[in-house]
């Protein structure tokens, strides 16, 4: 994710500093930035901090950043556990720093347009919502280590769980099923999360990490009392090419093809920058990032226990 975020910061003219324990020279080179030799050096050089480390490191990095008086943009999911997420919120509040989870899907113009229509009441009351996302199984091993990433549900489906909440509000009950196929040697897993919102609306979120070569795709279908909205990234691309010159080079399938619309990572970076500079509210609050984590954890628990999980007003489940 660091490269997508770095490209966005570069595009809006930020001066970039990088730190990674394993070295960040290559990334720093690619984006004309400076490699720092320590976190302390990074915090000394940079005014804002963007955490793109694996999920289990979010808490400690956020702690040191806010202690260094830096505002923090943190890759989703906000944290691996609700406890860690709460600690992050408390630390940010104690140091009066901004903590913004990078739920970049809120900045994809398709989702933003749909959300605006829903907010404006043009669809009436939300009734039945579906969200889907497919991508190739991430190559970096920590993603497929449940202890580290929380797996498909916490890492990928958290996007669509957040969308469901953004569109249809808080959730009362979470049910989920998951299938990790070990068959035929191919890596493929899928999970379905069904949310019953407090309003009575129901949402279906379908995630998928497929075998190498799986194209990234995403979309939604939203039905309300006054109308429906539908989007599928595989349609209405604005550009289709047919060539006899052999197959086109394959994309890695882990990141979406941003095609011909405004780069959402850039819009996200600008929103964070503005919030950090002016105190405005960013599109996603830390509380909303924590709530999405809590719902994803409820879904993981539902899979393990084969039952529907009730969620209280604070997002907790027992």
């Amino acid at each position, binding site marked *: 994710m660091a490269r997508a975020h770095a490209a966005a910061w570069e595009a809006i003219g930020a001066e970039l500093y990088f730190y990674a324990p394993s070295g960040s020279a290559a990334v720093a080179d690619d984006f004309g930035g400076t490699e720092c030799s320590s976190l302390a050096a990074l915090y000394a050089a940079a005014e804002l901090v963007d955490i793109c480390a694996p999920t289990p490191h979010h808490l400690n990095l956020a702690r040191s950043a806010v202690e260094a008086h830096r505002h923090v943009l943190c890759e989703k999911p906000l944290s691996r556990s609700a406890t860690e997420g709460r600690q992050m919120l408390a630390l940010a509040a104690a140091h009066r720093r901004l903590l913004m989870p990078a739920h970049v899907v809120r900045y994809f113009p398709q989702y933003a347009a749909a959300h605006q229509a829903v907010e404006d009441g043009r669809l009436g*009351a939300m*009734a039945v919502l579906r969200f889907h996302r497919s991508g190739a199984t991430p190559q970096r091993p920590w993603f497929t280590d449940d202890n580290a990433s929380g797996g498909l549900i916490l890492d990928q489906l958290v996007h669509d769980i957040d969308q469901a909440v953004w569109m249809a509000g808080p959730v009362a009950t979470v049910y989920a099923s998951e*299938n990790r*196929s070990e068959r035929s040697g191919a890596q493929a897993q*899928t999970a379905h999360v069904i949310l019953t919102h407090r309003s009575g609306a129901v949402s279906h979120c379908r995630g998928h990490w497929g075998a190498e070569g799986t194209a990234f795709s995403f979309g939604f279908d939203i039905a309300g009392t006054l109308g429906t909205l539908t989007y599928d990234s595989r349609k209405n691309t604005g550009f289709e090419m047919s060539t006899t010159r052999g197959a086109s080079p394959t994309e890695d399938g882990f990141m979406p093809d941003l095609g011909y619309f405004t780069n959402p990572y850039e819009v996200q970076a600008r929103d964070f920058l503005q919030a950090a500079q002016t105190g405005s509210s960013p599109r996603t609050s830390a509380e909303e990032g924590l709530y999405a984590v809590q719902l994803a954890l409820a879904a993981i628990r539902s899979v393990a226990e084969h039952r529907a999980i009730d969620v209280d007003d604070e997002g907790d489940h027992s």
Partner: protein
Amino acid sequence: MTTGRLKVGIMSFAHPHAGNYISALLSRGDVDILASDPGAATAPSGEIRGAEYAAQHGAPYVDSYEELFRWQPDAVIVCSENAHHRVDAEAGARAGAHVLCEKPLATTVADARAIVDACEEAGVLLMTAFPMRFTPMFEAARAAIRDGRIGEIVGATGTNNGKLPVGGRSWFVDSELAGGGALVDLTVHIADLLDAVLAPEVPELVYAATNRILHSENSAVTNETGGLVNVTYSDGTIATIDCSWSQPDSAASWGGLTLQLIGTEGSIDIDPFALRVEGVDEANANGFWLGYGANNSVPLINEFITAIRDGRQPEPSGQAGLRAVEIVAAAQESAATRSAVSFGEAPSD
């Protein structure tokens, strides 16, 4: 083997598919038909039923089932309200007629099982009318899966979304006659397609979340209008069915059906109603929607008639119809109790 002309009786015009079956039968040229719709007498005014409906579709007509059975049909097609399928199918079986029954086979597991048993005891064939089985896209999907083109199936998402079906037949939203709401009306098509693709795997766990947000202002609607049904199968495959009357009243078409199958080495999306020419219509704000897909009633009827002539089991069978009803019953139980239901634990009434 049955040679010569077959006599096929149509029982009831409650389900508007009756007209499709009549024209599919008439187009064959090797069957004689006779229809009866005794329920016409008590049907809501304004709904075209009985002799008038028969005349519109070119079907010879008698007023009662007694007259229909006196004609000694080789087969009957049951198109009555869902709750009447059992009594009508049993009457047909008792009269020695093979039975093609409109979906859902019944409104309860007990009734569906009774229909299957009655046909077995009478020694007649039983087929459930799931027309989506006969779409060429589904056949292509099945063939691709059989050939291993997308590896092993791991998950599926099906959608069957339609307008609130109150236009020509108000019984569709009547609890008693329909047996429920959107869950009953719309789940079975996808459930049957999944059954066909995943056999011999069987459902193990069913969860459903439903609501009545859409059309809540319509006092005639007392059941769920929106629903999501999640099924876990015995091999771990997971599937969700969106069974909602979520197609707005003003939409250009009644609705549609889609099915996405995800495998270990790829995925397939089918959208049988995608075959259409669209455009802007100065006379209609919804625009042109010129569907050109084949009429699925024709291969469905052909399967029924051919199976009778060959003396073999038609597909989808009565058992397939029963399995779909079992999923609906488990989903209804889950929605009522707000908990996942282990398959086989669903009440069989």
